[in-house]
């Protein structure tokens, strides 16, 4: 284990910005993708359901 | 005034919905600018030297490219006739169309310029001057370009004719625009360049819509 403390870990040998910048962006993007996927599923179910109701009449 | 807003809204909506002019100009700008390294090689020193020139040429081409479509679609579909039949003076909606065109094609260039600065590794100061010169210069391109677009509307070979007509008028803008960055890099004052661009913008703003409106009436005869 090469880390002595949390702040040491976060500093990444003075390159924290670059390391956490990459991982952070990746994390945000992946969360965003998952969230958009959820939204898409919900919205398309809603839309399709409405269309189905309309077509029934 | 109502018609000004209506035309502005619709043209922006169309630019957004078709993403046509908006993205064409922007995409073209980015493409031209980012193709250069492939063509001339990736040597950073050389890239930095030609950077501002490339960005300005790209901006000019992007404006030129978007111009033929400024009135063409409305002309073909009959919308232009309806606009000419409006009781409001034609300068009003002509100005709105030009403004919308600038917002959709000129403004994105200004906003994306910092990215190109990074790509060509310009210094931050040079990038700022570049942005300022684009912000002051691109309105002239749209305004003068609109006259050309109106004059060549519906003609054979409108595209090349338009290019021929407006190019001589665009070159000074290019020279001052790219010159501003060079002046900054050479440690000289950039005020003359920028104030010429600004003055040109104002003059074009005052005159171009009238010329453009007259040309459009002719085109619809």
């Amino acid at each position, binding site marked *: *284990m*090469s*880390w002595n403390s949390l702040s040491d*870990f976060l500093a*990444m*040998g*003075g*390159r924290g*910005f*670059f*390391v956490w*910048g*990459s*991982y952070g*962006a*990746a994390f945000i*993007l*992946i969360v965003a*993708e*998952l969230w958009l*996927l959820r939204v*898409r*599923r*919900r919205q*398309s*179910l*809603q839309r*399709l*359901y*409405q*269309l*189905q109701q309309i077509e029934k009449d | 005034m109502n018609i000004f807003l209506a035309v502005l809204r619709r043209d922006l909506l169309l630019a957004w919905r078709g993403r046509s002019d908006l993205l064409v100009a922007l995409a073209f700008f980015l493409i031209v600018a980012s193709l250069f*390294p*492939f063509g001339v*090689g*990736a*040597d*950073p020193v050389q*890239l930095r030297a030609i950077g501002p020139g490339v960005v300005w040429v790209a901006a000019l081409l992007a404006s030129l490219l978007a111009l033929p479509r400024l009135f063409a679609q409305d002309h073909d579909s009959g919308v232009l006739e309806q606009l000419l039949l409006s009781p409001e003076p034609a300068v009003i909606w002509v100005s709105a169309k030009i403004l919308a065109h600038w917002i959709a094609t000129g403004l994105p260039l200004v906003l994306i310029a910092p990215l190109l600065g*990074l*790509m060509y*590794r310009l210094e931050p100061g040079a990038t700022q001057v570049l942005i300022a010169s684009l912000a002051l210069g691109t309105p002239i391109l749209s305004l003068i370009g609109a006259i050309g677009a109106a004059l060549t509307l519906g003609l054979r070979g409108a595209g090349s004719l338009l290019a021929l007509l407006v190019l001589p008028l665009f070159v000074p803008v290019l020279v001052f625009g790219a010159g501003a960055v060079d002046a900054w890099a050479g440690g000289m004052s950039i005020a003359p360049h920028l104030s010429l661009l600004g003055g040109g913008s104002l003059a074009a703003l005052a005159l171009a819509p009238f010329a453009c409106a007259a040309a459009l009436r002719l085109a619809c005869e």
Partner: protein
Amino acid sequence: MNIFRFSSPQTFYPLAGKLIPVFGTLAVLCTIIGLYLGFFVAPTDAVQGEVYRIIYLHVAAAWMSMFIYLVMAFWSAIGLGLGTRLSFYMTQALAPTGALFCFIALWSGALWGRPTWGAYWVWDARLTSQLLLLFLYFGFIALTRSIEDPRRADKAGAIIALVGAVNVPIIHFSVKWWSTLHQGASVSMTKSSMESSMLWGMLIMAFAAWFYSLAVTLARARCIILERERHTDWAAAEIAAKGAKA
């Protein structure tokens, strides 16, 4: 009418539904193990220091972005050859995830480049071809999105995916050749023999990315299937059941 054509999405839909949680769990597990190995077991790099730890993200994302494009081309060829709709759905479901990984690779590479090469961006072969790959992804997505008729979108997307796939190796080699022709040694990577914990960390992260892509793609494919098959009886039943709650 081909039975195979119709039955496929129908059987695939519930199967995908069952597989998603499995792959999702595997992705989370692999990420945890991989990052643990990478951040807590693997030593500091002798040359680069700590910043090299971007590698666990960067390489996995870069590999995945290239792999996904190949898979898309594969499904496109199947779709155009056999006319199976499911392959088109898969192609379209894969694209956003591929673009995402492509972007992550570019982003992490750029952030890695600054401390190691002194610039966020250089016109190097690998970087450039990765950028062009991102454009290929964007092109595919933009094309399929802007075509309203779904049948046309399917086939047009398949055509461009295949044309792009033919070009990926060409792009790679041309750009490689180009930059080695022009450019001195301004870019060179420190190739030290890799510690096994680093290697394992990297590989396990690659698997994490793979499982993640599988899970997300299947979920997206399920949405597409429902939208496109809504006139079939089974999909209508599914929509009636789930839609009321949504």
